[in-house]
């Protein structure tokens, strides 16, 4: 986690490095889920007068009109954000020398107000420029977020517009900073390694519980895939919460951005981050789907790895064309 001042930003060739604090996280989460909805009163909708507006028993509500408008991000093509979760512990460099435990390419279609969270298995066996074949998670260790961007571009044909990285403590702080997250656990989860111990049903997670939920892979038969899907579930939960908070008080988004800013690293300029956050509020949570790139487990040397399936090419093509991809993650217990 970036603290004090951080030093977490290390310059990398070809890409301006800006350490974005909480806002970046906010944007990452927002963009990731891109799900808040601006709830405006529907124009000309009849409504009941609020109590106390008049003492007359014969009241006519002559007019109720709502208006809503937010400045949109420019661009005809979809927007792509790479959201990474670093396994750096407190005191460690978040963006270099650590692994990305969570890797999501978030596609946002600003015209159709749809978005997709495309999760990549951490152990995907891929070609890393300058390194050779290795697990996707190691790309950040070798070259920071910019090298992960290169690998994702190589795999999908999509160049992420921005990246945002958070850490274990960063995730905990963010979830606590927004008052926790509500998540529906679909299969019983028990993993002493991550600390996950959750029954099925609705849970209200604090930051530490959310981290355990996001890290658990031992519960699942298809561990790496379900873990990625669960990380997407957390992002969607955050977006639903932002949606509700924004509908109640649009100024609440400023607090969210501040919380996120403290806990993420990003190359997003702050003004762009703000615009992106507002754009996210215009995407209904129901228009955001959570997809995990398919693959099969295997072994290379003494490593458990994931070979990405050829069918993934169709997902990438859809993401390239529209910013979104069909499908929905289903956990397998």
């Amino acid at each position: 986690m970036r603290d004090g001042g951080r030093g977490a930003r290390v310059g990398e060739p070809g890409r301006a490095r800006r350490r974005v604090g909480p806002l970046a996280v906010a944007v990452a989460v927002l963009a990731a889920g891109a799900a808040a909805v601006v709830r405006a009163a529907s124009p000309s909708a009849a409504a009941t007068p609020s109590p106390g507006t008049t003492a007359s028993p014969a009241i006519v509500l002559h007019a109720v009109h709502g208006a809503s408008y937010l400045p949109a991000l420019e661009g005809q093509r979809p927007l792509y954000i790479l959201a990474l979760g670093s396994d750096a512990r407190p005191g460690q460099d978040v963006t270099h020398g650590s692994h990305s435990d969570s890797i999501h390419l978030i596609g946002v279609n600003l015209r159709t107000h749809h978005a997709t969270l495309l999760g990549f298995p951490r152990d995907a066996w891929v070609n890393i420029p300058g390194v050779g074949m290795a697990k996707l998670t190691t790309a950040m260790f070798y070259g920071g977020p910019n090298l992960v961007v290169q690998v994702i571009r190589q795999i999908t044909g999509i160049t992420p517009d921005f990246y945002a990285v958070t850490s274990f403590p960063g995730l905990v702080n963010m979830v606590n900073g927004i008052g926790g997250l509500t998540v529906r656990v679909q299969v019983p989860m028990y993993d002493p390694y991550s600390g996950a111990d959750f029954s099925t049903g609705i849970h209200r997670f604090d930051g530490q519980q959310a981290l355990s939920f996001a890290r658990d892979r031992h519960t699942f038969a298809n561990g790496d895939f379900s873990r990625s899907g669960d990380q997407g579930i957390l992002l969607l939960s955050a977006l639903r919460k932002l949606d509700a908070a924004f509908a109640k008080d649009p100024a609440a988004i400023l607090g969210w951005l501040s919380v996120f800013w403290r806990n993420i690293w990003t190359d997003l300029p702050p003004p762009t981050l703000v615009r992106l956050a507002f754009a996210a509020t215009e995407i209904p949570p129901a228009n955001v789907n959570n997809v995990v790139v398919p693959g099969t487990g295997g072994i290379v040397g003494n490593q458990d790895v994931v070979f990405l399936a050829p069918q993934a090419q169709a997902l990438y093509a859809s993401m390239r064309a529209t910013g979104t991809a069909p499908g929905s993650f289903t956990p397998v217990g």
Partner: protein
Amino acid sequence: MSEPRPPTGPPRSSRGEPSDAPAVLRGTRAERLASGRGRGALLATAAAAVVIAAVALLVLSRSHGGPRGGASPTAPTVAFSFPAPAARGQLLGGASADALARPIANGVAQTLGRFYELAFFDAAAWSGPPPAAAWAAFAPSAAGRARRDAAGLTLAGAGERIGTLRPASSSLAVRVLFDPKRRPIAVIATVSFVARGTLARGGSVEVTSRGSYLMEQVGGRWLIAGYPGVRTEVVAPAPAGA
């Protein structure tokens, strides 16, 4: 909130008390008019006054978007401004920056006060679209959309002619987010506004407007760049026999 501007009545001193100065001036002017030179000056002055008045009326008419059926081409019926806004500032990272937010909040209050004055208290807005000058409160990127959303932002959708309207209560809260270099990167104003008056056909009317505005600085002024949910309601007793 400012008091309604008195439409007529005796001139008042700067303290608001009735002034007797005009009586003194009348006497002085009468003495001057006693001479022939004074009469010539009077004619010239009167002619100039007529020309100035005509030009002023023309300018006012244009600034209000031209004549509209039955609408007054003059200034708003009452002056309006928001009370001192609540200002809250926050740096990215969480530190409080209320002092930095104060001047921004004042600028926002100026823009929104003028907008509400034209959108709700200009008699033209009681029977048609608000004066064109009202849209000057919006950033160029939002002005076109705002015109189309006039029914939600102004009295344009009231559906019934208003006879009089006076401010009743209002509040304005401004929250500002600053980047690490203390530059404002997001400004959101939250408005609560209530006005009461009468309908042209008789009976009371209450107008409320609530919502949030996203503000951005354009050419040194704080203008409306977005409005994520603004709601205007007009409530009145049902007409007799309705």
